[in-house]
């Protein structure tokens, strides 16, 4: 079976399951008794195991299987969740993640068996949830455990590699009654496992024929997967059932195998060996004779592939992996999977509708122009159609933009786990509170934002929050809080990382800066708190007293800042010494199209991003005052410096003298909490502009962030007001 075409899906879904597992285990740590969580974990682990098995990733499957066993026991109430167990589970998750990463890089899972983790997991099972240091699984013990298990497990792997999966079917009370009734009536109860050929296209149809054949011979009590799932083809190459019949096992087998494309059928009498606890006794049997019994019983997919004639990647992968380990490490190849965006079908539908509307609009426009030619002068209907076209294109643009948007959840979801680990590592108690995980950003931005955010969270955890005893001494709750809030604000998305720790000690930063020679003592005295904090963003500036592996190397914040700026975003710091600090990242929703105000300066047109504009003021020439030889205006109590755009842009003056006495049009723009007034000659209006690159052949000044093409085909430059302030 060629599984390569499913690799993308496998990777996507594995990552989802891993994330889900991680979330749920975190949850479990908080509420060890929560049955819903345990069930959810069990389901996720189970799906992951199945997927890994199907794809032929043996090691991954083995590890997941053992994890699943532990969850299964917890679910059955055999033992309770304990802190040591959570640690081992998290380590297993890390190992699984490594497998997935390896697969993404090379399509192979790597050669690490993670035997220590498997042993640790098994020892949890063996010791009924107790985490024993060392965690070895001596053979004698497992033998004893196996013998205590029902006899059916060893029977399942006597020689045939395709286990009789029907033994895994769990029987509920009604079904048990039916079985008992059948026995009392002298009928026999059989367990049956059917393997469909790998090449089979219509598995569900084959299964249906099998069911049909069986119904002639007796009565099907239960099947795994359920009859509905089988009908919907929600099964792999095998399904199992429990079946009441008066016929012999061989007759049943014959009946099943008479259906074409059925590769194998196993049928044996259902021994009512596990009447008391149907599910539980099987588990130790599967796991204890660890290496031999387990793959046979629980790993039907890859095992099934082995004897099949078709060259399957499953067995092929193993020698390849072995070869890789033998002949040094594999060269690092580029990831085998393309970057994709998973798109909500609704968004695509919407897009499709808009495109069809666009076609309609185009057609109406054609007929409208034809009509206009007939009776010249009447342009009414053409204008109407143009307006229609306009609204369609606007919607189309929005929809396309939305397709590129993904929730930041994919990035922030890993943070709770990270904070938990940090909390242990740093020996501080802390909690992470997140909100707005569903806030959407452009895929490219989401991909890039993870590292900076992670860095800021680590900063908060390491530098921001005080040690617990200090917190208590300062009258704060012992457990520190870190907040990660994301929300949309106009055309921006704001992500805020906040902590209730000690805040930035501005004096310490000041002293450090002087000590390092970054600024002179005189300069330092004159600097405002904000300017001092900005020093933190300089390369190789760290105030951490000691370098830990969490942070303090001084390579962080400057990288954070440059990364955010490369995404056209900005970072702002709000600090309350003693109460905590908050780091605010502001990112544009999209990088390609912006809402802009078109202005005229001299006889040139420029675009200014609407997002940075606060107000537009009409200013009398005499209201402009000089402060330190700089022109400023007073607006509603604040003094704002003004910038003569014609001077900055070296635009030849219009030369009309009456300009001198005319009111000035001043656009007030902001950057963080700084403001400036830009003097322009005329306003044209608001317009959606497409940002175009200006090519690499000219080095444009910083105040020009790009160019755009106007309706008449002319090029207008886009002003970057941040560079002007």
């Amino acid at each position, binding site marked *: 079976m060629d599984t390569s075409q499913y690799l993308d899906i496998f990777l996507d879904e594995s990552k989802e399951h891993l994330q889900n597992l991680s979330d749920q285990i975190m949850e479990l740590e908080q509420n060890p008794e929560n049955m819903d969580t345990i069930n959810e974990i069990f389901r996720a682990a189970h799906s992951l195991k199945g997927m890994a098995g199907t794809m032929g990733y043996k090691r991954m499957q083995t590890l997941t299987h053992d994890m699943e066993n532990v969850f299964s026991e917890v679910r059955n109430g055999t033992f309770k969740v304990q802190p040591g167990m959570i640690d081992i589970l998290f380590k297993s998750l890390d190992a699984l993640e490594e497998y997935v990463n390896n697969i993404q890089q090379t399509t192979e899972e790597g050669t690490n068996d993670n035997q220590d983790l498997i042993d640790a997991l098994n020892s949890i099972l063996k010791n009924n949830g107790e985490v024993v240091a060392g965690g070895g699984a001596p053979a004698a013990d497992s033998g004893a455990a196996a013998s205590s298990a029902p006899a059916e497990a060893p029977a399942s792997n006597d020689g045939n590699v395709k286990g009789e999966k029907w033994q895994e079917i769990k029987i509920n009370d009604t079904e048990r009654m039916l079985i008992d009734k059948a026995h009392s009536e002298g009928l026999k109860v059989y367990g049956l496992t059917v393997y469909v050929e790998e090449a089979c296209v219509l598995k569900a149809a084959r299964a249906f024929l099998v069911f049909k054949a069986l119904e002639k011979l007796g009565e099907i009590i239960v099947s795994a997967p359920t009859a509905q799932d089988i009908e919907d083809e929600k099964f792999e190459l095998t399904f199992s059932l429990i079946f009441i019949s008066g016929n012999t096992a061989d007759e049943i087998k014959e009946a099943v195998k008479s259906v074409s494309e059925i590769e194998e059928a196993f049928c044996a009498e259902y021994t009512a060996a596990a009447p008391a606890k149907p599910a539980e006794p099987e588990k130790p049997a599967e796991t204890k004779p660890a290496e031999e019994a387990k793959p046979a019983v629980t790993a039907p997919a890859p095992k099934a592939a082995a004897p099949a004639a078709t060259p399957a990647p499953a067995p092929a992968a193993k020698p390849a992996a072995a070869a890789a380990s033998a002949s040094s490490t594999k060269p690092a190849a580029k990831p085998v999977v393309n970057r994709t965006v998973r798109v909500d079908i609704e968004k695509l539908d919407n897009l499709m509708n808009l495109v069809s509307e666009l076609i309609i609009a185009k057609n109406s426009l054609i007929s409208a122009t034809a009509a206009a030619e007939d009776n010249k002068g009447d342009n009414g209907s053409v204008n109407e159609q143009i307006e229609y076209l306009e609204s369609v294109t606007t919607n189309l643009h929005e929809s396309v933009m939305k397709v590129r948007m993904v929730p930041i959840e994919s990035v922030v979801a890993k943070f709770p786990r990270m904070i938990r680990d940090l909390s242990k590592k740093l020996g501080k108690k802390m909690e992470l509170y997140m909100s707005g995980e569903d806030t959407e950003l452009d895929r490219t931005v989401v991909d890039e934002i993870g590292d900076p955010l992670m860095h800021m969270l680590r900063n908060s955890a390491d530098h921001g929050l005080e040690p617990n005893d200090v917190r208590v001494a300062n009258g704060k709750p012992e457990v520190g809080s870190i907040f990660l809030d994301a929300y949309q604000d106009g055309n921006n998305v704001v992500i805020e990382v906040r902590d209730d720790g000690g805040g930035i000690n501005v004096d310490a930063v000041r002293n450090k800066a002087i000590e390092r020679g970054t600024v002179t003592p005189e300069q330092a005295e004159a600097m405002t708190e904000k300017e001092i904090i900005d020093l933190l963003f300089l390369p190789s500036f760290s105030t951490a007293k000691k370098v830990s592996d969490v942070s303090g190397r001084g390579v962080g914040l400057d990288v954070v800042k440059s990364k955010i700026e490369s995404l056209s975003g900005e970072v702002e710091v709000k600090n309350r010494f003693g109460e905590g600090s908050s780091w605010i990242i502001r990112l544009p929703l999209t990088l390609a199209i912006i809402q802009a105000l078109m202005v005229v300066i001299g006889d040139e047109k420029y675009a200014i991003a609407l997002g940075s504009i606060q107000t537009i003021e009409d200013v009398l020439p005499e209201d402009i005052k000089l402060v330190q030889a700089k022109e400023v205006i007073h607006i509603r109590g604040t003094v704002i410096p003004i910038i003569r755009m014609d001077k900055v842009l070296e635009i030849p003056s219009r030369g009309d003298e009456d300009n001198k006495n005319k009111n000035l049009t001043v656009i007030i723009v902001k950057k963080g909490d700084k403001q400036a007034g830009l003097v322009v000659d005329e306003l044209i209006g608001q317009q959606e502009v497409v940002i175009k690159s200006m*090519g690499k*052949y000219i080095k444009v000044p910083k105040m020009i962030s790009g160019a755009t093409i106007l309706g008449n085909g002319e*090029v207008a430059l886009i002003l970057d007001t941040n560079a002007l302030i």
Partner: protein
Amino acid sequence: MDEVKVMDDQKRDFSLNRPVKRETTQFIVTQLGGEQYGIDIKYISNIIRMSKITRVPKVPNYIKGVINVRGVVIPTISLRLKMGLPEDEVTKKTRIIILTLEQHESIGVLVDEVKEVVTLDEEHIERMGYEKDEKERFLSGVGKADGKLISLLDITSVLAEVVDV
């Protein structure tokens, strides 16, 4: 639009079907001041009439600004100013030649006039020595066609200097 589009086929002809013995190159001959300059046709993707050039502030004077060519913003330079000749005078004959080098990056150059296409054998091209004076910096050689002398522009070196700015 009156555009002289250089056919892709022509470019391919040049490389695939050239005669075995004789290396020939096609040049578009342009007028700049009193002289004729040849630009290797393989760099030229389009020749357009003078259109509105949007000035870009704070760039060297020979960068005239940016233009819109079918939805792409392309910087445009003045070859005259670049080569130390007097400022361009825009006439009806003024053209912008769009050059595309590797990586699909384009640049427009202003010329007084586009004359013709000439095909030159290698033997009719006199390669420049290493000693070049100020004006000859951007020349790769001189070609002879119908008794005229055509200075052949070394486009890569013209553009290399633009990038460096």
